[in-house]
């Protein structure tokens, strides 16, 4: 039983490490910021998730499980938010149809239609 659990840990952690590698390669090789953001979220969600999953059999008490899963959930929440925030910040202004050409530069391009995201 313990051998099976150890094997599970090894497989899951290795998969997680591969996703981190993939995220890094994407961060380095993708051509622009938005695609790099896409690569990053893979490492965030799947890489850390698989590492946490793999560590669960090694953690001792139910408290340890809760801690590990809470770490992953928090990383998911902040990863999703960070993706939104950074994507909004780097979005090219010409994608935004509603933006008037003479809008002052420090008004955020997304501001007029921000409510449609909620």
């Amino acid at each position, binding site marked *: 039983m313990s051998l099976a659990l150890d094997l599970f840990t090894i497989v899951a952690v290795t998969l997680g*490490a591969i996703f981190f590698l993939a995220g*890094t390669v994407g961060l380095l090789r993708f051509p622009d910021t938005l695609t790099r953001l896409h690569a990053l979220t893979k490492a965030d969600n799947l890489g850390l998730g698989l590492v946490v999953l793999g560590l669960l059999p090694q953690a001792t008490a139910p408290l340890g499980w809760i801690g590990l899963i809470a770490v992953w959930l928090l990383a998911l929440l902040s990863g999703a938010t960070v993706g939104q925030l*950074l994507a909004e910040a780097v979005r090219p202004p010409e994608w935004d149809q509603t933006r008037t050409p003479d809008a002052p530069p420090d008004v955020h391009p997304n501001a007029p239609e921000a409510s449609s995201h909620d």
Partner: protein
Amino acid sequence: MTAFLLGAAAFILGTVALGLVRILRGPGNADRMLAAQLLGTGGVAALLLLGVATGVGAVSEVGLLLALLAAFGSVAFVTGAGRASDASATDSGTQGAARSEPE
């Protein structure tokens, strides 16, 4: 098992370290922020691996803190006037004082 977990931690640290090349190359500050963000996630993963490998239980609480505050760098990037230096996608950032109020 301990050796495997430590090795995995070293591997993840090494990969996100490669990602730090993005901090050097940029080109925009958003890309630098992405590299820091990846380092944050990888750091949490390495921390959890280290904690389980060395049997220090409280380490997962440190990971919890890091995950809790992981978004703060990017929050700082998009609020404040992060866009002032990023919009130009260059290092000089001469887009104007974003904070000074036109009176």
